[in-house]
């Protein structure tokens, strides 16, 4: 089975992705992660204004069969939450890199991006 791993995203070993646009970073979980979880039925996310710390848990995603913590790829302050996931958590399965995004954060420290996996390294991780 092959999974989407967009080249312009960076990844955590624990299957979260981040995509930056200037000083804003969008965060979600990968195609591989949603496939492992199966049907996502619940997503718990922080609120706007909350702070994330790179490597620490910031939320929970639950499928019918499992509960998983979600880890922050970068540190920063939450500027937007994808509230559509509260009513339609299945968007995480249907479009993990698009409509299934979770948070926007303002990057506290751009150099943290260098600690993340590039697309090739992440492809090796899930191979």
């Amino acid at each position: 089975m092959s999974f989407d791993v967009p080249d312009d995203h960076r990844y955590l070993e624990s299957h979260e992705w981040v995509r930056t646009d200037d000083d804003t970073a969008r965060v979600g979980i990968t195609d591989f992660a949603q496939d492992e979880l199966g049907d996502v039925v619940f997503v718990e996310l922080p609120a706007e204004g909350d702070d994330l710390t790179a490597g620490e848990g910031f939320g929970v995603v639950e499928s019918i069969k499992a509960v998983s913590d979600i880890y922050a790829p970068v540190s920063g302050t939450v500027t937007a939450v994808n509230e559509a996931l509260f009513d339609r958590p299945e968007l995480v399965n249907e479009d993990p890199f698009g409509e299934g995004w979770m948070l926007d954060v303002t990057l506290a420290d751009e150099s943290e991006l260098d600690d993340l996996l590039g697309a090739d390294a992440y492809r090796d991780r899930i191979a």
Partner: protein
Amino acid sequence: MTLRRPPLAGVYEDATLTDFGGWEMPVEFDSTRTEHIVVREAAGKFDVSHMGQVTVSGPDALDLTQRLTTTDVAVLAPGDAQYSGVTDEDGCLLDDIIIYRLPDGAADDYLFIPNAGQDGEMTERWVSHREKWGLTATVTNRTEAYAMVALQGPDAETLLAAETDLELDSLSRFEVASDTVAGSETLVARTGYTGETGFELLCPTGDAETVWSAFDCQPCGLGARDTLRLEMGFLLSGQEFHPTDEPRTPYEADIGRTVDLETDFVGRDPLAAQARDGVDERLVGLELLDRGVPRHGYDVTDTGGNPLGHVTSGTVSPTLGTPIALAYLPTEHTDPDTPVRVVIRGESKEARTRATPFIDG
């Protein structure tokens, strides 16, 4: 420990597998939700070869089985089946089973179906009590000899009719007959664990793939089997009852209908007392009003936060789209629509009790 593999293991390609009762079984072929909905709306097939098969034959087969189960086995005519409990001396459930009185002409008198991984223990229980009571019966664990396929859903009958000459119209719920299915000698029972009409097919292990492949419908895994049974409020051995982790009587587990106190069986006297005095706690359905997923082991409290009990099984119902659960609560909190709370990761979530099944059967 080596996992037991069902005879169909070689047939699955993309299925996700898990250890269930010592068997390596498929959890999902497609997605649990997809499989679930297909069974409610059309038909799906499940490999349930992890379920045990134990036969009991000989002059005292009825007496032995009667004294080890909660129902009145004597009422079964050839070709009848019943849902029953196996209880210990305290009246607590060791297993819940289906007992078949096999059709005339079958090699054995009775066949019963223990849960996954319980076949060895149940066989031993029948054998040791036969010795203790000096009865004459042959008890054989045939779990490895049988494959079991469940064909469930509104289209199940049409699918099966194309593969057998058996008159399915005359096979009522909880009846069993023997005939060929896809050319293989098979026991066909109108039973299941989904709440839909459907069949459970028992065939020799060597014919498993032929019977499985004969049905062109969605293969379904244990994930959908669990969500389907939970919507019906059916018990799962090991979750709603367990000899040490969750010792519960049939009355507590809300299957008091399986207890016939007119028969004599192991555990009868404590159950008679419970029937007379009532139970302190009982299994009840819950519906979560807040977002979240109630799961096995989560605490249930009253609206003031005082502990009441715990969740035994929970999920988000694929049919209703809402979180549902089963929980043991003090009897005075089990009336439908009683407000309670389920504690999920430290947060108290609003819920209310509900009668089961959660969906219209």
